[in-house]
C-alpha cells in the first residue's frame, strides 16, 4: 500500500520547512536511505532520507514550497499503484514560491494571498485545526484561535500558540503584509524588481526570535573602549610562531578567537552573566556554551562552542573555524546551534566602530565587538600618542543582570584583552 511521506520535524523548534530541492522525480525507484531531497528548517538545510523503499508515485509539494510539519510531501508505493489523495486532515501545501524574473524590468507582484492571517477556515476550505485544550484557552482569553498560525503537527493550533497570542502586546494585532502602493520608477529601470520576496526558514527564525527578544527582554546597554595594541601584538607573534611550526599547529588565530577566549574567561570571573531568566527564577549555568554570529548571504546563524570555559585559545580557534565552515555550507546540525549561554557578535571586519546586538534568548547578554582603529589617545604620561582602540558593547537582560555586574563583566573582559597573557592562566 502506498505510504504518504510527511514534512518531517527536523529540529525541536521547527514548525514549517522549505523543500529546497528534490533529488528524485515521480516514477523513480527509491531504496531505504536514498536522499530524496533537501529541506530547509528554521536552523539548517538537511537531507531528507528515504524511509520507505518503493516507487515515487506522486510529489505533492514542488521544490520551493513551504509546508508545515506533518504536511504530505510525496507518496511512495508499488510501481503502477495509484497515488493516494493526501488525507483531508493534511493541510494543502502553500503555493510554490513565486519566481522572480531577473532581467525584465517589469514589476512582478505575486497575487496577494486572499487573507493572510489564516482565517478559521483555511484557504483550501478545510477547518482550522485547534486542539481541544487550546480552543478552551482561547475562549477564556477571548482570542480567535482559528486566526492563529498553529505550530503543532499539520498546523494545528495548540496551547502554546494561544498562550503566545494572549501574552503578545496588543499592537501585535494581525501583522498582515503592508500593502503600500509605491509607484514604479518613471523610466522603468529600477535597481531591482518590485516584488514580495518569500523568505526561508532561517529568515523567519531570525525575524521571530529577534522580535521576541526585543519586545520581551528589557535590554540595557554598556560600552567600554579597550586598548587593543597588546592583543594585536600577541596575535601577530603567536601567528608567526604557529605558522613556523606548521603541520597540525598551523592554525591562524583571529581577533575574534581572542575575544571568544577572553569572554569565556570573563564569564568565569563574573558568572552572574552566564545565566538565563526562567520565569520565576534565574537559572545559572555551570558551563559556558559560547555562541557567535556567522553572517551568511541570506541571513546569519549562531553556532555554539560547548564548554568554552574549559578550552584553550587554540581549541576555540580550531572549533570556531570548523563551525564557520559548516555554517557557510549550511551543514550545521540543530544541535550545533542550540544550548548557548552567551553570544558574541563582531562587525569589526566591516569597519563598524561600535554597536549593540539584540540578546539571543535565553542568554542574559550579548557582546558586540567593533573594529580596532587607530586614533589619538592620551597615555599614562599625559602624552598624545597613536592608540589602537576597540569599542566593545554589552546588551544585557536587566531581569538577570544589573548595570553593576554587567560593568564588572566588561571590566574583567577589558583587563583580559589589555593584558592578554592573563588568558594563559
Amino acid at each position, binding site marked *: 500500500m502506498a505510504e504518504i511521506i510527511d514534512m518531517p520535524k527536523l529540529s525541536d523548534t521547527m514548525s514549517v520547512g522549505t523543500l529546497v530541492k528534490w533529488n528524485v522525480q515521480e516514477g523513480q525507484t527509491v531504496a531505504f536511505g536514498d536522499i530524496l531531497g533537501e529541506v530547509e528548517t528554521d536552523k539548517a538545510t538537511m537531507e531528507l532520507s528515504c524511509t520507505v523503499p518503493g516507487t515515487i508515485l506522486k510529489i505533492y509539494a514542488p521544490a520551493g514550497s513551504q509546508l508545515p510539519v506533518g504536511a504530505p510531501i510525496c507518496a511512495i508505493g508499488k510501481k503502477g499503484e495509484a497515488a493516494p489523495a493526501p488525507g483531508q486532515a493534511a493541510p494543502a501545501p502553500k503555493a510554490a514560491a513565486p519566481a522572480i524574473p531577473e532581467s525584465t524590468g517589469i514589476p512582478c507582484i505575486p497575487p496577494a494571498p486572499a487573507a493572510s492571517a489564516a482565517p478559521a477556515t483555511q484557504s483550501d476550505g478545510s477547518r482550522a485545526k485547534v486542539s*481541544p485544550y487550546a480552543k478552551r484557552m482561547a475562549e477564556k482569553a477571548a482570542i480567535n484561535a482559528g486566526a492563529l498560525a498553529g505550530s503543532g*503537527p499539520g498546523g*494545528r493550533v*495548540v496551547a502554546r500558540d494561544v498562550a503566545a497570542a494572549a501574552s503578545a502586546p496588543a499592537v501585535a494585532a494581525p501583522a498582515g503584509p503592508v500593502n503600500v502602493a509605491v509607484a514604479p520608477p518613471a523610466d522603468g529601470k529600477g535597481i531591482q524588481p518590485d516584488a514580495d520576496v518569500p523568505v526561508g526558514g532561517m529568515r523567519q527564525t531570525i525575524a521571530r526570535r529577534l522580535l521576541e527578544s526585543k519586545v520581551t527582554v528589557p535590554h540595557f546597554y554598556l560600552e567600554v573602549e579597550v586598548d587593543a595594541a597588546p592583543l594585536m601584538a600577541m596575535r601577530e607573534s603567536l601567528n608567526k610562531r604557529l605558522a613556523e611550526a606548521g603541520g597540525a599547529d598551523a592554525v591562524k588565530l583571529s581577533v575574534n578567537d581572542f575575544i571568544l577566549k577572553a569572554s569565556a574567561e570573563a564569564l568565569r570571573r563574573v558568572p552572574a552573566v552566564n545565566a538565563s531568566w526562567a520565569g520565576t527564577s534565574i537559572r545559572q549555568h555551570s558551563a559556558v556554551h559560547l555562541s557567535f554570529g556567522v553572517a551568511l548571504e541570506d541571513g546569519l546563524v549562531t553556532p555554539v562552542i560547548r564548554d568554552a570555559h574549559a578550552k584553550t585559545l587554540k581549541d576555540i580557534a580550531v572549533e570556531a573555524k570548523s563551525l564557520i565552515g559548516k555554517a557557510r555550507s549550511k551543514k550545521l546540525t540543530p544541535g550545533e546551534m542550540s544550548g548557548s549561554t552567551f553570544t558574541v557578535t563582531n562587525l569589526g571586519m566591516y569597519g563598524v566602530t561600535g554597536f549593540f546586538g539584540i540578546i539571543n534568548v535565553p542568554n542574559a547578554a550579548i557582546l558586540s565587538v567593533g573594529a580596532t582603529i587607530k586614533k589619538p589617545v592620551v597615555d599614562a604620561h599625559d602624552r598624545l600618542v597613536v592608540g589602537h582602540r576597540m569599542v566593545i558593547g554589552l546588551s544585557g537582560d536587566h531581569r538577570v543582570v544589573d548595570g553593576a555586574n554587567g560593568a564588572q563583566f566588561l571590566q574583567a573582559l577589558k583587563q583580559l584583552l589589555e593584558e592578554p597573557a592573563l588568558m594563559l592562566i
Partner: protein
Amino acid sequence: MPVISYREALRAAMREELQRDEKVVLMGEEVAQFNGAYKVTEGLLKEFGPKRVVDTPISEAGFIGLGIGASMLGIRPVMELMFWSFSYVAFDQIVNNAGNIRYMSGGLINCPIVIRGPANGGTNVGATHSHTPEAILASHPGIKVVCPATPYDAKGLMKAAIRDNDPVYVMENTILYNDKGEVPDEDYIVPLGVADVKRTGTDLTIVAHGRAVITSLKAAEILEQEHGVSVEVVDLRSIRPLDEETVLASVRKTHRVLLVEENKPFCGVDAQVAYLIQSKAFDELDAPIHRVSSIDAPQIYCKRLEDQQLPNPARVVAEALKVLA
C-alpha cells in the same frame, strides 16, 4: 527502611498473611518442596508446613478449580501459576467460575481467591510463555487485576489482594523479581484501585503499569536531561478497579498524554485508558493521545527483536516527542 527485592517483597506479603490468618494457604506447581519455580515461595513450606503450602500436579484447570471451590467454603487460597500464560487452560475456572459466583449466588457466596505469577515477555521464552493477560481478564466484571511495578507496591498490593473478598489476579514480572526498593517491615497495604504518581511533571503525562512504569521512568529521565521536558509518570497499579481520577488529574495538569504498556496494542488496557481520557477530559487535551505497546505480533523468540518488540526507553522517548510536537 529495609531495601529488599520485588521477589522478597511478595514473599514477605504472603508470609505475613499466612501468619495473620490461618485460612490463608498457598497452592501451585512446585511452590512447596521446590520453593517455587522462581523462588518466590522459598522457605514457606518449612515455616508453615504442608497443610498451608501445598504442591499441586501439573493441571491448572484442576488445581485452580480446587482453589475456587475452597475459597467458596471460606479458605483464602493464594494460587501460583508458573506463568500467567498457563492460565488459558484454566480459563473457564478463572473467568466463568471465580468471576461470576458472587453475582450468580445473589451475593451469598464470595470467592476470595488470589491467583498470582509472572505475566511478561522479554525473557526469550517464546510466544506461548510470554502472555500478558491483564486486559483480557480485566474485561470481565467481577474480577480484579493488579500489576505491581515496584517492591513496595508488590507487597502492599499482594496483602490487599489476599484480604479482598473477590478474586484478585496479581500479574508479576520475572524481570522485576530482582529489582530492589524500600519496603517497610510493618504491616501496610496498597489499596486496590489506587494509582500512584511515580514522578511529577508538567509537560506530559505518561500512564503505565507493570514493568512499563520502570521503562517510562527511565524515558522520563532522558526526556528531562536531553530535551528539557518535564514528564509526569502515573502508575496505574490496579487495572481493575481503575483509578480514573488520578489519571484525569494528571491530564488536566499536563494536557498531553502518552500511554505505555507491555501488552499487545489491540484491545489493550491503554485502549480503555485512551477512551476514558477522551470521554472525560476531552477539553483538556492539547494533542492526540499516543500509545507505546508491544509490537503487534506473537512474542518474538529472537532476543534482539524481542527487546525491540517490548516498549523500551528509546521507543518511549521517540513517541513522547511526537506527542509534544
